[in-house]
């Protein structure tokens, strides 16, 4: 699985296609320490005011901070507001 992902990623780079289109990798955009937007997610796995964990195809992206709120969420993207402290990627164990 990991090798296939690496192959697709390198192929897309060579073809000049954004890798998230072919691989379904998540796109994470941060706005300072107050907001983070995650595209191509697979839903929320944990939610509290201190930590929001979002499922992605890599595994999981956990956003920690204080007073975290989900400002907007649909099947494409999720926007998390709050005082962000860290964004952590937890890779899926093969």
């Amino acid at each position, binding site marked *: 699985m990991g090798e296939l992902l690496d192959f697709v990623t390198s192929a897309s780079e060579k073809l000049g296609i954004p890798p998230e289109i072919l691989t379904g990798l998540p796109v994470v955009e941060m706005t300072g320490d107050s907001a983070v937007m995650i595209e191509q997610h697979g*839903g*929320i*796995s*944990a*939610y*509290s*005011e201190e930590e929001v964990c979002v499922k992605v195809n890599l595994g999981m992206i956990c956003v920690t901070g204080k*007073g*975290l*709120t*989900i*400002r*907007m*969420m*649909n*099947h494409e993207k*999720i926007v998390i507001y709050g005082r962000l402290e860290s964004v952590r990627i937890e890779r899926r164990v093969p």
Partner: protein
Amino acid sequence: MTKLETTLRGSVEVTVHSAAPERCLNRLAEAEVPFWSTSSVDAFTIRMFVFFRDLKRLRHEAERAQAEVTVVKESPGIWFFLTWLRRPCLLLGLALAIFMVLWSPNYIWTISVSGNETIPTSVILRAVDTLGIQFGVRTDSFQSQDIKNRLLNTVDGLQWAAVNCSGGHCQILVKERDVAPELLNRKMAADVIASRDGTIVEMSVLEGQALCQVGDTVTEGQKLVSGINDFVVNLQTARAQAEIYARTWRDLEVKTPAACEAPVEEGRETVARYLQIGRLRIKILGSSSISGVTCDKIIERNTLTLPGGITFPVTLITETCRESETESRSVTKPEASGILQTYGQWAVENSMFAGEILSEKKSITPASGCYVLQGTYSCEEMIAREQEVQLYGSE
């Protein structure tokens, strides 16, 4: 979500309680139910906002995610107006208010007449009705100046008229023609004579030569004030005027039958109700006709009137027809006494030019088939009457 969008579309603040509230959020995202401003209340409860119209879908998805939804606050936005569909009376009232404000001032709904004193209002209303000012006509369908001119030609006795239409109300202002006062013909010579026998109690001579004084007893036709003043060397004629009050006595005999026809029992009763809007008469219910029997017909009219006194041409008419059987019954003496005394007093007072009844002596006796009141009324009344003097008679 912009504030404008949420305000217009309406939003609902809800709390979702579940063992895993994240599952509910994921389901909502999959079902494309927009939600925003999600915050965690505790480990099992989250608070969020959804659009007002998505509340039903939220409940459905939450039920599938085994979550419990509680509505905290509703802001319906424009959907608030849809709740009015469940209130037809409110909508009807709103439509009526809009109609009254925007449309109705162009039509005449009420007509009033002011300024008339001797000419009846009904005569003026009938006249303007024939000239085209009627209930429900457009105010721009006639010219006020034209109506005014034609009204002056139609109704006799009007000196001036104006027609003002404003806010659905047509006011007709009129001024009646002043009648010239009757001039006193001072060239005519006249005496003042007594119209009845009596003893003079008060006397006021305005013109002429008095021939009597207070305390004198005079007879009917006696000259009281002369219109010919004798100044020895010549005679001067005048139109004698005087107010002379005298104590008089009037004898009166009044009869009333000892039996009368009176209703004995009320039979069947029919009621009919009509709604009259302007000239249109709509029958609401019932029938007020009873054929072939004697009956009393009572008509009650209730006109729609605002607290300020403005009357609308909407009238609820209730016609009640009640069968009545009559039978002959005898009149008791107290009843006859009341009738005769009332009529006797009325007859004496009306036969006097001016004055009052001071005392009365009367007796009521039954006669053949009737009661007879014989009374003597002591009155103080004006007895002065004018009589023209024939200066160039046969003498």
